[in-house]
């Protein structure tokens, strides 16, 4: 953890139990509230985090329990949320991103990553089959623009 800069950050690690998804999204929303986000923004961050952590739990670790790591960092102009698992990984990231694509069509809708892309400004996925997945999401508070720049 880099504490040399003036940024605030928190790293949260927990086993991939379904009940921890609610804990993770609430903790992330609480931490994000330190920035000038609107309540709508915070709701969107909460949904995106819920999707990402659910994916780590459901797809990353399937029936096993592994460690999920969520890191939230406040940068000067944006928030970064990183959700990491050491699960099965994603073979074809492009395909995974497609709306309605899911490897679990009986139970899932394939909308998780769609929601994440809709609600966050930037999304990067790093994944390796058999090694795990890291999802990096970024979002900036909407500039209200009532005051002109000096």
């Amino acid at each position, binding site marked *: 953890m880099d504490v040399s800069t003036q940024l605030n950050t928190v790293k949260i690690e927990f086993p991939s139990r379904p009940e921890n*998804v609610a804990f993770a999204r609430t903790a992330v929303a609480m931490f994000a509230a330190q920035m000038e986000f609107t309540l709508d923004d915070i709701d969107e961050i909460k949904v995106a985090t*819920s999707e990402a952590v*659910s994916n780590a739990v459901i797809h990353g670790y399937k029936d096993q329990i592994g460690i999920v790591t969520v890191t939230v960092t406040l940068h000067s102009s944006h928030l970064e949320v990183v959700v990491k698992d050491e699960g099965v990984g994603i073979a074809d990231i492009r395909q995974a991103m497609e709306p309605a694509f899911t490897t679990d069509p009986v139970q899932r809708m394939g*909308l998780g990553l*769609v929601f994440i892309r*809709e609600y966050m400004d930037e999304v990067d996925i790093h994944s390796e089959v058999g090694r795990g997945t890291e999802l990096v999401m970024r979002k900036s508070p909407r500039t209200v623009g009532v005051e002109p720049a000096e």
Partner: protein
Amino acid sequence: MAVVDKQILGRTLMVKLSGELDLVTAESARLAIDGDLDEFSRVRNLVFDLTDVKFIDSSGLGMLLGRYKKINDRGGRMLAFGVQPVVQRVLEMAGMTKIMGIASSLDEALAHC
């Protein structure tokens, strides 16, 4: 528990949900609702009271869509009322409002059943 109240009125099952609808609570709601749909074959329609639902993600949506398919197979209708803005936005984004009617009250929902 996501399901806080269930009632059958004629051919309509009314389900009141509460809290945050995610993978855990959606699963418990699914079990409760499907139990009733299996037991009471006369039920055609499903009305959700979402007044107290403050959060929904794609797992919650998946539960709603799955119930819609069952109700649609029976030739019934599915509606929701008391939909909070934060939930409404997620439903709209996923196109759920095109298949699930959104009513402003229980009475209005029942009038469409």
